[in-house]
């Protein structure tokens, strides 16, 4: 038990907060603690979780990316145009196109960062503006509604009506999300590349002395986030049944907050997929709960912001220290 606390302090704290919050919402609203609502939450959070695990990899490698959400919008738009020109396509070609464009946009960030030694936040603020500017210029802000039928039709993999009459649904976005989560977790936890990413983020100079290819690390990290952004973009278009150029604008900060909430560190070397998923879920649950409580949607951002502040302040320092996972104080360190 203490061992689990040592290695997963943040995750356990997050889980505890989620449980307490859920119980509270369960008592104060009728609908929150139903299976139907739980699956709704998963469906709503799927896209953000896909983005979040991608961003996690970049954070672990010591970088940051502001551009991935608008990159996902670019992916949606370009994919829709390409699909239209090849006569519609289907899911496989759709995913291949979206993934390729996503990787391309991600790798461009890595290229700027590695070749010109621009720090990642500056490079991606630049590409954020470039991607979004190009998108608005070419679309003139016009949305695409005539998407292929296969893309806009809801794909329900499993459904079941519960005794209380609500529906349990597992939809395609949830399946894709689960695949992305497992793939990311495998990449960073089980492969040598993943461990090298952690090492690079933790101590770049130490990693360099081990002969780790620093350029490769950047390309892999940003390429992976690009891949997730591409997949997430397509899934979001499917979920929304339309492509709106500025639909994902601003999403990057929500996702970033969720990932940091999940225990990833700006500066690298730290973060887990589970923490990341819990971080996104905590924010979704809060919004969902506020909705069910009938709180004005105009207050959401403010309340979510406050929760992020409190949770990060607690989970990253105080509570861990309470559980005894604080750094031992070396006499001179």
């Amino acid at each position, binding site marked *: 038990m203490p061992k689990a606390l*040592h290695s997963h302090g943040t995750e356990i704290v997050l889980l505890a907060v989620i449980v307490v919050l859920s119980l509270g919402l369960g008592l104060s609203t009728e609908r929150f603690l139903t299976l139907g609502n739980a699956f709704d939450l998963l469906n709503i959070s799927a896209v953000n979780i896909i983005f979040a695990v991608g961003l996690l990899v970049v954070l672990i490698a010591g970088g940051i990316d502001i551009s991935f959400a608008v990159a996902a919008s670019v992916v949606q738009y370009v994919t829709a145009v390409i699909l239209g020109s090849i006569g519609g396509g289907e899911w496989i070609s759709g995913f291949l196109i979206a993934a390729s464009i996503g990787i391309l946009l991600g790798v461009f960030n890595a290229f700027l960062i590695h070749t010109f030694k621009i720090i990642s936040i500056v490079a991606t603020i630049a590409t954020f503006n470039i991607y979004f500017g190009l998108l608005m210029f070419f679309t003139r802000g016009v949305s695409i509604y005539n998407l292929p039928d296969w893309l806009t039709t809801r794909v329900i993999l499993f459904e079941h009506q519960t005794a209380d009459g609500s529906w349990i649904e597992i939809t395609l976005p949830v399946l894709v999300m689960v695949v992305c989560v497992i793939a990311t977790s495998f990449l960073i936890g089980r*492969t*040598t590349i*993943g461990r090298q990413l952690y*090492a690079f983020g933790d101590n770049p100079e130490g990693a360099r002395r*081990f*002969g780790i290819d620093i350029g490769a690390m950047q390309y892999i990290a940003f390429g992976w986030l690009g891949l997730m952004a591409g997949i997430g973009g397509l899934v979001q278009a499917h979920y929304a049944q339309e492509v709106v150029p500025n639909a994902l604008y601003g999403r990057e900060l929500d996702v970033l907050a969720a990932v940091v909430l999940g225990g990833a560190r700006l500066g690298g070397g730290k973060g887990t997929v589970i923490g990341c998923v819990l971080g996104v879920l905590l924010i979704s649950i809060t919004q969902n709960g506020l909705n069910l409580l009938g709180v004005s949607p105009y207050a959401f951002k403010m309340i979510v912001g406050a929760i992020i502040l409190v949770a990060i302040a607690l989970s990253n320092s105080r509570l861990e220290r309470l559980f005894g996972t604080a750094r031992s104080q*070396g*006499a*001179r360190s």
Partner: protein
Amino acid sequence: MTEALDRGAAQRPLLSLRDINVTFGGVRALKNVSFEVLPGEVHCLAGENGSGKSTLIKVITGVYRPEPGAVIEYGGETYTHMSPVTAQAAGIQVIWQDLALFPEMSVAENIAFQTVVGRRPRLVDYGRMREAATAALKRLGVTLDVDRPLKDFPIAQRQIVAIARALVGEARIVFMDEPTASLTQSETDCLLDIVRTLSASGVAVVFVSHRLAEVLEISSRLTVLRDGALVGVYPTEGMTQSRITELMTGKMFDQTVRARPMEGRPVVLEVDRLTRAGLFEDISFTVRQGETLAITGLLGAGRTELALALFGMLRPTSGSIRLEGRPVRFSSNRDAIRAGIAYLSEDRLSLGLIQPQSIADNLVMASYDRLLTGGLLSERRKRDLVADWIRRLAVKIGRQEDAISTLSGGNQQRVAIAKWLATNPKLLILDSPTVGVDVGARAGIFDIVAKLAAEGLAIILITDEVPEAYFNADRVLHMANGRMANWFDPRATALADIEAAVYA
């Protein structure tokens, strides 16, 4: 195999370098240096900063390529130069001064990180990693919880992790660059034991250290470099610290007691029964104008905490501080600076100086308010002030605008001292001013201290090296467990007696 043959094989060098020349931008960093290490021996590489020690290590580990004509023989093979990959594959391992570890990762992963490096991506075998890590620690005779993140462990244990990592790389020769710089005495003893264990198991250790006592204790042979050239190779048996210093610097240092009588001079600082619960208790002393008071004692004796209390960074629980007769009570170190107290911190590199900033900016950091004309910063006054201190302390610099990180340790230390002197203090507290500074530069720093004292500055010198206190202070206060243990007068006491009392 007969014993004679066995010994013959053991005497053949494991590593031998000849005619090593390295030039950086016209400066000869190494001149015709040769170097030899026997299998399993502990060999010390000595020299001042800039003497070429690090360059030599980097040639051996393949970071630098020597000029043509160089011969490197290692394990029966001859090379003209090494590459990092061949060096590592051949069992040449370096433990860098900054350790190059990964704090967030587990101890096991840190030790066995080699197993996840390599061109071809593959799956991570955590089981094998733990086994390799445990085996390496066992060879060193150490037990650590290999599953805990490295950041949970203090620096001494991290050092052990770095050594264990070298063993996983099948080390036959391990270079240790200043491994004891941030260790306490007992931690150092523990490390030296580990070095002996390594050596007994047939791994050669090349030890680089500024602490000459350690060098004499641990190594069997000594190679001395000066200004990029080989001075010679000597057996450590029969060698003395002052002889090594002489070889390293080419100069004789007269170690004479500098203490002078101070009675009757005006008192600058008077501390009366100063206490901070749990850290130090009942400390009373005075420091007079022009006096150098040394406070010595083992690490953890409360010396630094006392200094922080005098500097307003730690609130005393009882007792009083009087500065030039007036009682003072500081609520922050800003108050202390304003009142005329300067404190040169123990960890100069991380706390005292801002490495990427320029020499000039570092030097004026604590005295900006003296550079204001009409509320604005005067660049001219700043330049003059910096130039003045650079001259007075004989700091060797290129341009004022160069980053402080371009200076050697000794010169950085001088800038750090100048930074505080520029505030015009009445009392200067120097906390372990020579940690990580080599012998020649140490002498330079103490010359500055003597000069400042002669100009009337009151100085408190905190050090855990008793000889430093003995030779450079007028009085020596020995602290132990947060209390005053003894007073010593260097003119009336033998060095050995003080050492016996402090290190007991």
